[in-house]
């Protein structure tokens, strides 16, 4: 270890992305973002889904060229035209999802793709297995990882798999390592082991960029942070100067910008969806939940909180753990077909992969959940399908030259509208939606929110799983907050909103999501621009 520490202090490399702007067509994924990884430090890259984190990582690891902006290593401008040139410059990345060969051994997985890389003294290509083992063993020892080199990768536990991936990345002795949500699918104990490894890497002089949604981890392992929101950098600075709650506020943004889609009807209505003794996963505390007709219930929480599991169960996408009654009648849902039969229409988060057949035309997609309704004696009236789709095109203002265009030609927001049209057309009384506006631009988002409110106002019931606090504030009548797979609290959003000039719902949610402590015990400091400016000033002063 002492040797490593010496190496670390010798030279501190710095990899900097300066004023990066990246456009996907006309949509900006990043606007003038700065980010730097420094040897020996762990820099947290934070932000909600869709804020531009993954684009920034792609750019900094050579998977994508920025539209505008420069990358510098130790002050020298570099061009990363592809992933291999990034590797050549000492930049490595460990992706969120596992990229292991399940049938190969740990050793083979670590060596894979690195066989031609000279590491310290030996070329791995052509060297004996024994020599490979020696080299890998040396590396693991250096990283303070214990792994049985002969084990089959498929049999490893999740933390060990992550170790293998990190070790593989470290085979090339990179100076900069990007870890994209390395703990996303890990239990707290396994996550701890990975975090320890992150610290070891930093102590040895590696510059680590660390992406995570678990802010406790970020606070415990990182030195600095940068928060992105809506493609912009909203704050950066040393981590010790902010609390977890500060970070959440920075990530979710300012409630003052939210214009509510519409005020909800205030009269109490009967329960449409009654959930009893439902658990999001085996071993989680069961909960009860009632959703009134004509209202919008948003299930929220940090990523992985269990909110989306509830929605998936209601949609029939995964088995329902618990009991359910719809309009007072007890129902079983084992398949999306059952859900539709009981008037529940489900839209998954992954529109392209699971929601729509993107190569098929808009009108055909609109008909897929309602083929029985547009057919007689098993014969589909395709003219009627086209006419129906045309109607939805106008009603939902779907931007397309023709309903016969493939769904793949539409923007994210318009694809989501096609999803909604498909569910509307199946005649459901309840919509259950997962992240309905993820990857949707601002205008599409507000249009979709209005559609959902209209649906509720017309007597429908809407259940949305969302990690976007602004969305929660924008459309909800009721909010169910989930934490660690369990229901933490159910709120009537109007009463909270009315309580304190707009910002308190957000404050409240942040509090409940993070710790389960309700807003009253939190100090209600608003994350205003002044605070961001203060952090930036302090940063600049250094």
């Amino acid at each position, binding site marked *: 270890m002492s040797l490593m520490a010496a190496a670390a202090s010798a030279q501190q490399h710095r990899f900097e992305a300066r004023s990066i702007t990246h*456009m996907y067509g*006309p*949509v900006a994924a990043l606007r003038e973002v700065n980010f730097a990884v420094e040897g020996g430090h762990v820099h947290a890259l934070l932000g909600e889904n869709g804020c531009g984190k993954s684009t920034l990582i792609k750019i900094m690891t050579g998977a994508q060229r920025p*539209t505008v902006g420069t990358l510098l290593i130790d002050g020298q401008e570099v061009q990363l035209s592809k992933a291999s040139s990034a590797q050549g410059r000492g930049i490595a990345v460990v992706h969120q999802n596992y990229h292991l060969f399940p049938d190969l051994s740990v050793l083979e997985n670590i060596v894979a793709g690195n066989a031609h890389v000279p590491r310290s003294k030996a070329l791995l290509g052509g060297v004996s297995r024994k020599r490979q083992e020696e080299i890998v063993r040396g590396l693991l020892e250096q990283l303070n990882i214990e792994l049985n080199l002969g084990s089959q990768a498929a049999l490893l536990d999740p933390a060990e798999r992550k170790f293998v991936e990190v070790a593989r990345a470290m085979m090339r002795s990179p100076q900069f390592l990007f870890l994209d949500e390395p703990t996303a699918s890990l239990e707290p104990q396994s996550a701890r082991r990975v975090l320890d490894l992150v610290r070891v890497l930093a102590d040895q002089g590696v510059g680590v960029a660390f992406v995570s949604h678990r802010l406790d981890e970020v606070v415990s392992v990182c030195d600095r942070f940068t928060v992105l929101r809506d493609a912009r950098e909203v704050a950066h600075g040393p981590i010790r100067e902010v609390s977890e709650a500060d970070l959440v506020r920075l990530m979710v943004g300012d409630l003052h910008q939210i214009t509510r889609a519409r005020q909800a009807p205030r009269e109490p209505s009967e329960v449409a969806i009654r959930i009893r003794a439902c658990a999001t996963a085996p071993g989680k505390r069961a909960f009860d939940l009632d959703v009134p007709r004509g209202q919008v219930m948003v299930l929220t929480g940090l990523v992985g909180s269990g909110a989306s599991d509830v929605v998936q169960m209601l949609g029939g996408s995964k088995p329902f753990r618990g009991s359910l009654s719809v309009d007072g009648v007890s129902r079983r849902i084992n398949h999306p077909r059952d859900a539709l039969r009981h008037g529940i229409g489900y839209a998954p988060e992954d529109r392209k992969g*699971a929601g729509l057949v993107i*190569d098929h035309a808009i009108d055909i997609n609109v008909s897929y959940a309602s083929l029985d309704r547009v057919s007689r004696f098993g014969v589909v009236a395709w003219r009627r399908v086209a006419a129906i789709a045309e109607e939805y095109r106008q009603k939902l203002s779907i931007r397309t030259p023709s309903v016969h265009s493939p769904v793949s030609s539409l923007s994210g927001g318009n694809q989501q509208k096609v999803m909604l049209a498909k569910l509307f057309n199946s005649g459901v009384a309840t919509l259950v939606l997962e992240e309905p506006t993820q990857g949707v*631009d601002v*205008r599409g988002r507000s249009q979709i929110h209005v559609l959902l409110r209209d649906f509720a106002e017309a007597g429908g019931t809407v259940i949305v799983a969302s990690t976007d606090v602004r969305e929660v504030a924008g459309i909800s009548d009721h909010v169910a907050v989930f934490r660690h797979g369990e229901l933490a609290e159910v709120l009537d959003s109007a009463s909270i909103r009315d309580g304190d000039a707009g910002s308190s719902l957000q404050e409240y949610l942040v509090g409940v999501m993070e710790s389960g402590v309700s807003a009253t015990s939190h100090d209600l400091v608003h994350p205003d621009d002044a605070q961001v400016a203060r952090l930036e000033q302090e940063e600049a002063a250094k």
Partner: protein
Amino acid sequence: MTTPIATTGTEAAAKRKAQPGQLFDLLFVPAVLIILCVYLSVTNSVFLTSGNLVNILLQASILAIASFGMTFAILGRELDLSVGTGSALASVIAALVMVNTGSILWGVLAGLGFGVLLGATNGFLVTKVEVPSFIATLGAFIVCQGIALALTNGGVISGLPAGIAAFSDWRLLGIPALVWCTGVIFLVLYFVQRKTVFGAQVMAVGGNPEAARLSGIAVNRVRFLIFVITGTTAALAGLALLVRVQSGQPNANQLLALEAIAAVVVGGTSLNGGRGSVARTLWGVLLIAVLRNGLDLMGLSEDMKMIVIGVVFIVAASVDFMRRQFLKRRYSEPKPSREPREAESGDASGDAGAEGGERRTSSGHESRTS
């Protein structure tokens, strides 16, 4: 938000301009077929005689029937390799029943019944036991061959009732009964695929099984029925074989499944499922049949014919591949534009998505029309 007038304007323009691209895609194979026919009729005096044309249709009938069924499998992202020996076994069973009972009707029913059973077995293995269709139907392919040989000791079952020969010779408007039957089978399956709920479900399942499931489609039921259709068309192809050669043939049609897949793909149906049609398969079958006939007329040997047809198959498959790559590039990965444009400024992101849609389509028009 744009005014309604602006929207209709773009709509009309797009409809006018989008058509050449779609038409090109749709008419590509027929156009090649026509060019081939013109070439053959100019270079060869025999080609355009009614006798030769009827012969082409007659020769194509077995492949056509099997290919129409295979289209459903491929549209649904499945394969059925058991069609070849399955059809041979169907012809053997039908022939045995006819010879032993003297009844054509019982023979036909037995053959068809076997086809349904074969399809149901494949469907069961694929949907319930979850054996990949490639493996399940490959197994069935081998089993069918074994049964056919066991039933016949490798010999041909002849001595069919006289009605079969009469049927084989029967013509309407100069066209043999078998060709008429093939036409009827085409019309039925075309209707099922294009007009029925089941046909739409097959497209959905092949296009995106998860989206189909979440749309409430009983995916496994659809897949099961796909195999019942391929099994039934295999039996029909076996009966066509029986009519053509006046016997039950345990060793015939060995490669029929592969030829049918080739015909489906040449016709322009995507091996990835969810795109194509029975009508396209008809063109594919005709193209292969005319090509084969033309090569015959040119005096090419059987081995040379195989080489040419194999090459045509590969070319057709790669055309489909290139088309998909082209579409992928155009739609799914929006290219970063070189200059950041107006969306750089603060609140432009609202209109950005919608504008993008428009720009993308307009560039699409250019590439289509050029």
